């Protein structure tokens, strides 16, 4: 059989599949829509035959195109929508955090070690912290937490509205999370650097407040949003290190497969981290700067910390009875 005979004989079937695919693409009803899998298998068969018999490239190209289009149409799934999202938040994300225990402690250390170093050291010797914060950083810390100022007044002056503050925190802090994740692709070095620097910078700010400002103002401001925000930093560090480790230490897989698998896990982690940071942005934007009794804020902060730890520690655990 020549390729033209082959084409003439089977053309009607190929056209049928083309019509069905068009119908699916444009969401029109079509009488043969339920025969799509059958038609697709036939096309695959025809393509194999055409390839084997070395038929004209025009025919092979056409069948190849049809096979790809058919495959894409069949493979198109509706995403799970909100149900899938809830599953991700309530189960997969906290489960993954717990499974990556080593990474969690590693990043916790990576962030908190420089934090405490600077927070404790700075009141005795503020030189390093002042270098790290720079003149502008020091001015903004002093005007926020100084003895005679309040974060509320300062924020109002700087941002003008709570919503603007919220938007800025999303833009800046979630952006940093995403960069921390991406930095993992540089063999983890980008992530290491960002997490260490973040710890040092925040620690320096805390230490500088003890040195030059009113600590109560500072702690009552940060109490509410500190839990989700700092956990977000640590977990985005986990996401980046997951990616970096899959690159450096592929384990039983080849490096390409290891990267793909690690990337999926890292994506779960970074999505969760972004959500934590967004929650922190809501709290920081709409709650933290409000002038209120410090003890209300400390209580609120304690509640948020316990909720965050309970969520990461217990959410999505399977009970043994089930």
């Amino acid at each position, binding site marked *: 059989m020549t390729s033209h005979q082959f*084409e003439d004989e089977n053309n009607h079937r190929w056209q049928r599949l083309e019509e069905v695919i068009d119908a699916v693409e444009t969401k029109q009803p079509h009488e043969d829509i339920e025969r799509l899998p059958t038609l697709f298998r036939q096309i695959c068969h025809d*393509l194999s035959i055409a390839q084997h018999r*070395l038929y004209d*490239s025009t025919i092979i190209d056409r069948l190849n*195109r049809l096979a790809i289009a058919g495959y894409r149409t069949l493979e198109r799934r509706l995403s799970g929508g909100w149900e899938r999202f809830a599953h991700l938040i309530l189960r997969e994300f906290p489960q993954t955090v717990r499974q990556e225990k080593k990474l969690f402690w590693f990043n916790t250390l990576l962030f908190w070690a420089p934090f405490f170093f600077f927070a404790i050291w700075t009141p005795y010797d503020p030189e390093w912290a002042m270098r790290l914060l720079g003149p502008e950083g020091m001015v903004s810390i002093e005007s926020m937490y100084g003895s005679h100022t309040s974060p509320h007044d300062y924020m109002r002056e700087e941002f003008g509205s709570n*919503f603007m503050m919220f938007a800025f925190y999303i833009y800046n802090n979630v952006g940093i999370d995403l960069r921390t994740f991406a930095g993992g*692709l540089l063999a983890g070095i980008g992530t290491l650097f960002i997490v260490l620097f973040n710890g040092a910078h925040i620690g320096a700010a805390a230490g500088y407040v003890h040195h030059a400002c009113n600590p109560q103002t500072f702690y009552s401001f940060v109490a509410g949003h500190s839990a989700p925000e700092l956990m977000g930093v640590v977990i985005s560090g986990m996401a980046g290190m997951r*990616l970096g480790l899959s690159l450096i230490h592929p384990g039983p897989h080849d490096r390409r497969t290891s990267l*793909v698998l690690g990337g999926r896990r890292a*994506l779960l982690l970074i999505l969760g981290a972004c959500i934590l940071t967004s929650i922190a942005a809501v709290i920081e934007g709409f709650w933290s700067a409000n002038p209120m009794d410090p003890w209300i804020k400390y209580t609120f902060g304690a509640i948020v910390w316990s909720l965050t730890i309970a969520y990461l520690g217990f959410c999505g655990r399977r009970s043994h009875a089930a």
Partner: protein
Amino acid sequence: MTSPNALADTLQTVELADGVEIQLRVAGPAIRSLAWTIDACIAVACYIAAAIIMGMLGVFGMENVWEGVLLLFMFFFNWFYNVFFEMTRHGATPGQRFMGIKVASVNGGPVRLPQSLIRNLLRFIDFMPAFYLFGFLSTLCNQRFQRLGDLVADTVVVYADPKPANPLRVQINATPQPPPHSLSRPEQAVILQFIERAPLWSDDRRIELANLLSPLTGATGPEGLRRLCAIGLYLRQGHPSKKS
């Protein structure tokens, strides 16, 4: 038709679960840069438009709120512009659509949300140190022109449905003749492709190519071409591949 062990080819063979092999035409860095340039222009235009609109709304009060909206817009646009468009049924940003390319899974299927998120969040690294240097180097180091984000997300950028070429049914005036000795499958494929494409070329070019096969045809010039066509017609007519 191309042999599977071809060294470097923009046609990448993928085997589907159904056992059939499909071929994806992967897109190289040049056309992708053009698509990116178009998208970058769109992005700049959108930023300017958004800034003007928010500025105008700010005149009527609540200036800071509109600034906040602008910041949020920039955040989402910056990180998720590509994700949004890759999730449409075209699987391509406006720039990519214009250039006729799209994003797909390595197995030829449509790109999924997690894949799209991964490849676009990692774009930040591909862009480093400036203008996609890392991404460019990565595309040169693997057969599928994948940048780093593509490698992690398991995606490729392919040409969207290439235009179906008009089938040429040209009569070749020669009497079919069997080749002097049996030919391997790749050899048969080359000759079949030759007579399929020969009508598109000038006479000189046909003869030039046919001369390369003079060891097979035993002649050069127009006579070699005639014999080559005869062998090609013979292969095309029937049982070409049985002996492989």
